């Protein structure tokens, strides 16, 4: 297991470097003066523009520029956002919590409900429940999450008036402690459900297929024949073996949940990275855009790494391959 972990870590490092270099190439080869991409389209003081030009050595050959770019990243310098008048690093750390709350809630929700629905559908293979779940999964996978967000607003906020439709907290709320927490949870319901439906559909589909395959295998028949309890057959014998593809889908889709979050946050004015992305595109605030790209890609590399490690822990064949 230890060599497996080390090998995976060694693979992740060049990948991270590749991500950083791609980001650098994007800045370097974008049309116009590269300094615009480091400073943004917002009118910045001439002095600062000169300072950035010197810091990143923009008059130097490309390898030198790459080196100074890496150097700046190493000390956590992601640039300064003149549109927001704060360092980009600070801007992102302010927003990252809201996005993590939304995406992790959605991912947890869709994983638990998706696995549950998939198992139920597989057990009832070709019976009404299975057909309904499969059809629902197909439709759920086709609905754009941002439109679903708008539909939820129409239904639950405008129509029924049950839930709030904008923001993460009630406006002018001064609540603290439990009251604040429940206020946030209240605001979280609609965006989290809107974001989770597509992954819920996907996870249901994958779990169902994996479980159908496993449930028809010989050792399940053996387990049943020796009189094992149906629940233990499902949970211990079957699900553990069906877990590999499901874990892959959940882990490898974190990136897509992040992307979906960008759209859903925009619909609900959720104060996260996605909303920041939307605003920064409007303001042509390039340093923020490239920083988001970098951060999201690195998050995906790390999520893939964790997925691989869980895979190796679940399945000895993976770690000894």
């Amino acid at each position, binding site marked *: 297991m230890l060599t497996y972990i080390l090998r995976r870590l060694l693979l992740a490092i060049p990948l991270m470097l590749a991500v950083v270099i791609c980001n650098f190439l*994007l800045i370097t080869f974008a049309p116009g003066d590269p300094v615009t991409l480091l400073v943004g389209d917002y009118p910045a003081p001439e002095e600062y523009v000169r300072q950035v030009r010197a810091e990143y050595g923009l008059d130097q050959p490309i390898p030198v520029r790459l080196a100074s770019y890496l150097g700046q990243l190493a000390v956590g310098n992601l640039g300064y956002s003149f549109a927001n008048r704060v360092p980009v690093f600070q801007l992102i750390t302010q927003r990252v919590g809201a996005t993590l709350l939304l995406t992790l809630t959605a991912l947890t929700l869709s994983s638990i409900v998706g696995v549950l629905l998939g198992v139920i559908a597989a057990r009832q293979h070709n019976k009404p429940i299975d057909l309904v779940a499969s059809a629902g999964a197909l439709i759920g996978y086709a*609905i754009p999450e941002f439109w679903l967000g708008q539909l939820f607003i129409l239904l639950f906020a*405008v129509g029924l008036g049950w839930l709030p439709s904008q923001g993460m907290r009630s406006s002018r709320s001064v609540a603290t402690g439990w009251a604040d927490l429940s206020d946030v949870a209240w605001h979280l319901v609609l965006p989290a459900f809107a974001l989770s439906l597509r992954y819920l559909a996907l996870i249901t589909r994958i779990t169902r297929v994996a479980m159908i395959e496993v449930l028809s295998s010989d050792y399940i028949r053996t387990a049943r024949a020796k009189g094992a309890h149906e629940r233990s057959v499902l949970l211990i014998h079957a699900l553990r073996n069906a877990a590999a593809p499901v874990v892959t889908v959940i882990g490898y889709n974190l*990136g897509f949940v992040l*992307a979906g979050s960008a759209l859903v946050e925009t619909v609900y004015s959720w104060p996260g990275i996605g909303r920041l*992305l939307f605003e920064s*595109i409007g303001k042509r605030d390039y340093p923020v*855009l490239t920083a988001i*790209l970098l951060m999201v890609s690195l998050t995906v590399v790390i999520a893939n790494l964790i997925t691989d490690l869980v895979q190796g822990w679940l399945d000895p064949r993976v770690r000894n391959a």
Partner: protein
Amino acid sequence: MRNLTKNPRAFGSFMVIAFFLLMAFAAPLLAPFDPFLGGSNSLQPPGSGFLLGSDHLGRDVLSQVIYGSRASLLVGLLAAFSASAIGLSVGSVSGYLGGWFDNITMRVAEFFQTLPRFVLAAIIVAVFGGGLFKIIIVIALLGWMQTARVVRSQVLRLRDAAFVEAATQLGASQFRILRTHIVPNVMASVIVTASLDIAAAILLEGGLSFFGLGDANLVSWGGMLNQAQPYIRQAWWMAFFPGMAITLVVLAFNLFGDGLNEVFSPRKHD
């Protein structure tokens, strides 16, 4: 083809796709109004004057939905076609050659597949500028991986098949073997994957337009949803119909892909 009409999933979804294709081609004939022409009748509910209501500038929602099918289908079809061409080339060469080339391309493909395409596409379009053509290129460049991986795994299997062995013994060149013996045998899976890619490309285009990154000269469903957002409390129809259109088209292409898969490999689905 006969099998296609017998498969209800493939046939039903094909009819929906044909309906939207017809809509896109005949948009000027079908649309009751000019989709760009505003008027004083803003935010009218569906009914008498406007079948699906009017938007905040008094434009007819139905006409916009009809014209919007053009942007969605054009981007979906062209991006998926280009992505399939790239994926087919990369996948077949990678699978046939094997070795380090295969190793590296598959690592790259795997990694690109897990990156959030929407965020990537949004930032690239924001930095390099929009326009239909650039959007298609960006979506295609971010969407070839699944095809490449599917093709590669099939080529690996075919490479050792008897008829490929025979062609090699007869002295056929590597390129000839790829072109005449291997590629025709993987086309079925390429077409299935392409259908799913069309659906993904249409969703991606919808998201980009929703972010205001679509082609400003065209009506697009995502763009309509963007404009509906501030009026969501007053005019549900502005959001409801374009979103419904995206969902129907995406669902149809996904189902079509599934159906084709059943038609092409009947043994697996008895």
